């Protein structure tokens, strides 16, 4: 068969035509990519060049091995096949391009194994395209929304690309078979193989035309796709690698207000947070490009499930459309307008409980919490906090707790149970935080936790606590610390009236200045207490002390302490008689900090305790409704998150929900009442349960 480069297409030699087309296509692509990069250059800084090895590891795990994709089985497998196919076909694609320009690549057919692989890969991709189109048109999974033209068009285009390649090969092989008597090595039952048979009786001239036509089609489809991808969700083909490489490595943290501006210098900034588009960091804009609208985040989002106006993927897609519109490929860019009320509604932004389900699900590791917090910072800076939050925020400022109760009574719940730090030597500080200190229901969690700590402390020896002291301070790996320090706790005390709210949710609701003030106050008090470690029963406080605070002793959640004590046999728990228990993973213990097994081990160590798992558990746990300031926010929703969760527990056959967070406790107990399930469902905190089973 003639080489492509040498062939004539409408009086133009192949070489010239395709050199021109290739260069044109590449130039267009380069131009488009440059225009797409432009807003990133004008955006805020984001420090993402550190820890290259860890980043490469993420690329390997999430990009190459598609680690998260199978969480939605069918779609995940399809995508892995397509992605695999693309990788395998990548080099092939360049070879094909080159064929149009130079005869050196006009090989008779690709050699052995490579050819077989190539043949199967493209056939497989074609088949996957078919399945995917059918899925979207006929089966219509809910998270894809109503079928729209764009994704189907793209799937068809990729299919066309594969088909064109198959025809290109098949027609050439048929030609060889007919004219030259050669039997090219083609993978059995691959598309080219099938087509060779189909073309068996065709005229050589026809075959030649088909062959050249297939090449032209392939080129057109290839470059069209290349240049079209940056205009829609398919851009993720190019940007996903970078999104994953630059993904956030540190769990549980919130980005600083401005990278490179230390906390003390925040006052010098003219404005905080994201108010206009260029206030986003370049990584966030890259995320908007990378969102493939798969809908998994929205599918997992509890706010979305309950009818709140929030949908994470919608946020990404809207933002992406905004960039496309305001930074067009052709034409001048226009930016600077405020985003509030235009790109998103305030209710949308305040609806988020920062549970992290979206981030845990996204196959491309797209971040949402930081964006929401930045948008909230912008709203707060403009005075737009929701009315129900004004009083709690004011109270946090003046009294150190959102309830407005006097700071002097913060330790009243602890009288007779655990002492207040008073300068005497202290080993373990029990950080209580506001809800456990002041809420009638949550106080019993505090008392149970304090009693447990007291009992464990009794079993400690001086040498144990010394080992623990030398364990060091700072943000060390907690597992190492917990194992270094035996379940011995030494002297335990609380900060009492000197304690202020940890500020965890103050920060996540965008009031950074107030958070910094609370953190400064608490850090001083914690350090002054002289404690070598901190224990808390509040996952929000735990997360704050672990990730938001600097220079404080290492912190453990009480479930870890109890689990440790149970494993070493330090503590024995009495059996329970009956009841079906299920464990609800609190967002800030589970998803954000990876502590799933310890609480389960504790429950499993109680003889006779029959435990079931809810369908949505561990990193798919369903948020109870939110903690901290989320308790005060009045969301517009169809159903309360807590009510949904309680029904999930009932579906799992449970009669008792065990949780390890005071906010979860308050939300779930309230939900039990609202759902009318009083008498059929109860809730108990892990500490309360252990306390009960220790003393009976």
């Amino acid at each position, binding site marked *: 068969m003639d080489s492509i480069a040498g062939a004539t297409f409408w009086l133009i030699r192949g070489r010239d035509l395709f050199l021109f087309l290739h260069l044109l296509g590449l130039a267009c692509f380069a131009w488009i990519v440059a225009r797409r990069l432009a807003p990133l250059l004008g955006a805020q800084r984001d420090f993402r060049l550190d820890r290259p090895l860890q980043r490469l590891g993420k690329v390997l795990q999430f990009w190459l091995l598609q680690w998260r994709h199978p969480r939605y089985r069918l779609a995940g497998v399809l995508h892995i096949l397509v992605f695999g196919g693309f990788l395998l076909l990548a080099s092939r694609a360049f070879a094909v391009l080159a064929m149009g320009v130079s005869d050196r690549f006009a090989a008779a057919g690709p050699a052995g194994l490579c050819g077989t692989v190539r043949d199967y890969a493209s056939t497989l991709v074609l088949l996957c395209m078919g399945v995917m189109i059918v899925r979207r048109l006929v089966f219509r999974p809910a998270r894809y929304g109503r079928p729209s033209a764009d994704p189907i068009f793209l799937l068809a285009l990729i299919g066309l690309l594969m088909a064109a390649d198959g025809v290109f090969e098949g027609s050439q092989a048929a030609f060889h078979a007919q004219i030259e008597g050669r039997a090219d090595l083609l993978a059995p039952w691959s598309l080219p193989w099938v087509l060779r048979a189909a073309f068996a009786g065709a005229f050589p001239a026809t075959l030649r035309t088909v062959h050249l036509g297939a090449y032209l089609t392939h080129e057109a489809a290839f470059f069209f796709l290349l240049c079209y991808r940056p205009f829609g969700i398919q851009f993720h083909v190019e940007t996903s690698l970078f999104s994953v490489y630059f993904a956030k490595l540190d769990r549980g943290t919130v980005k600083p207000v401005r990278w490179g501006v230390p906390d003390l210098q925040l006052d010098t900034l003219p404005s905080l947070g994201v108010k206009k588009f260029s206030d986003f960091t370049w990584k966030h804009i890259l995320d908007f490009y990378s969102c493939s609208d798969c809908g998994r985040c929205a599918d997992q989002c509890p706010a979305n499930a309950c009818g709140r106006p929030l949908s994470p993927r919608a946020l990404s897609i809207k933002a992406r459309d905004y960039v496309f519109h305001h930074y067009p490929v052709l034409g001048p860019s226009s930016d600077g307008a405020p985003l509030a009320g235009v790109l998103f509604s305030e209710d949308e932004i305040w609806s988020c409980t920062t549970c992290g389900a979206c981030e845990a699900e996204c196959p491309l590791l797209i971040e949402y919490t930081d964006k929401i917090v930045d948008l909230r910072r912008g709203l707060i800076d403009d005075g737009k906090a929701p009315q129900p939050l004004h009083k709690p925020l004011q109270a946090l400022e003046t009294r150190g707790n959102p309830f407005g109760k006097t700071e002097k009574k913060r330790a009243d719940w602890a009288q007779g149970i655990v002492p207040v730090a008073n300068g005497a030597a202290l080993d373990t500080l029990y950080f209580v935080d506001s809800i456990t200190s002041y809420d009638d229901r949550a106080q019993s969690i505090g008392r149970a936790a304090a009693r447990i700590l007291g009992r464990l402390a009794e079993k400690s020896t001086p040498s144990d606590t010394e080992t623990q002291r030398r364990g060091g301070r700072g943000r060390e790996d907690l597992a190492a610390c917990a194992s270094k320090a035996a379940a011995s706790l030494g002297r335990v005390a609380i900060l009492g009236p000197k304690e202020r709210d940890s500020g965890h949710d103050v920060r996540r609701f965008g009031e950074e200045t107030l958070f910094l003030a609370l953190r400064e106050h608490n850090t001083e008090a914690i350090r002054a207490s002289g404690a070598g470690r901190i224990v808390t029963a509040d996952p929000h406080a735990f997360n704050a002390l672990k990730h938001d605070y600097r220079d404080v002793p290492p912190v453990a959640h009480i479930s870890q302490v109890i689990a440790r004590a149970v494993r070493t046999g330090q503590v024995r728990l009495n059996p329970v008689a009956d009841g079906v228990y299920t464990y609800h993973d609190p967002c800030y213990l589970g998803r954000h900090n990876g502590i799933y097994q310890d609480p389960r081990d504790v429950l499993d160590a109680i003889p006779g305790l029959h435990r079931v798992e809810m369908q949505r558990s561990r990193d798919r746990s369903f948020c109870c409704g939110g903690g901290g300031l989320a308790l005060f926010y009045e969301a517009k929703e169809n159903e309360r998150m807590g009510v949904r969760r309680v029904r999930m527990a009932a579906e799992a056959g449970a009669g008792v929900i065990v949780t390890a967070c005071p906010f979860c406790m308050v939300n779930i107990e309230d939900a039990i*009442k*609202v759902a*009318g399930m*009083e008498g059929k469902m109860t809730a108990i905190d892990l500490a309360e349960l252990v306390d009960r089973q220790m003393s009976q």
Partner: protein
Amino acid sequence: MPPVFAYIVHRSGVADDTAAELLAAARRIDPGRPVTAIVTGWGDDLDGTCEGLRAVYPEIWKIARETLACPNAELVRQALVQVLPAGAILLVPHGHFGVDLSPGLSVKLNAAYVPDVLEIEGVEGVWLQAVRQEFGGQVSAHVRANMAHGAVLNIRPGAFRPADRASAAGQIVDQSAKVGALTARRVYLETIAAQTGDVDITKEAVLVSIGRGIGEQENVAIAEDLAEAMGAAVSCSRPVVDAKWLDKSRQVGSSGQTVRPKVYLACGISGSFQHLAGIKGNPFLVAINKNPKAPIFRVADVGIAGDILEFLPALAARVRQEACLPGTGLPGKGRRA
């Protein structure tokens, strides 16, 4: 002792309950002194009110002016300034109108002003001894007011038990002529009535009031049933409205309606300050709540620690039984709950 006057608030030809209360308050200032009622208004409404007052007050000063047909404190103030003698003591009910009228009036009269008086302990020379509340009712305070140049006293409605009817056949004195031109720099345009819904709880004498303890929408019917049996109406606290189980017009409290019933059944209501602020007139308050430590029991007259979902139906059944017994004088009629 200077002359004592009482400003009468009225609507549709009937004097407000506060009319008799002001008389009681005035008697605390000076038991023997006759008190003159002052009424402003126009037409039949004004005349009707004045007639009704004859059974309560010995003397009624009537000020009729067309521009006074709708209560406009700015105009009333001007009229009163022209009519009141120097050094007079004027009692006004404390409320939306009293707060509009009295502060400025006291300045124009050069008189002392004591707002929201709860108790009058007596007079010592020119000094009036009274009791007020501060900080939203959390503490009380003794105050003294120098009445040397007169005084305007805003009396809290419901704080003074209405005086027994004096047998005085009151004299109506038309003072309209004494009032010159009234210049209006504030002009009344219209009143937009609050959405009352089908029942106006502020007019009910007996209320069956439910709170969060009712549990769910379906259980509201239990309260409605009891109310029907008792000839009462159903009201509620804020959480019930927030949950959309009842309309906002049924809400009792500082952000809802103020009610003045004779009997108030608080069922599954915890007794928050905001809710209690809507209950005036010191009704007979029965509290039924599962939690014996609920704050409502501190202010209730009678308390029952129990489950309202069981208690209310039992009570309704007994009420119906009572209604059927002959000779009890209870007609047992049902009313829209």
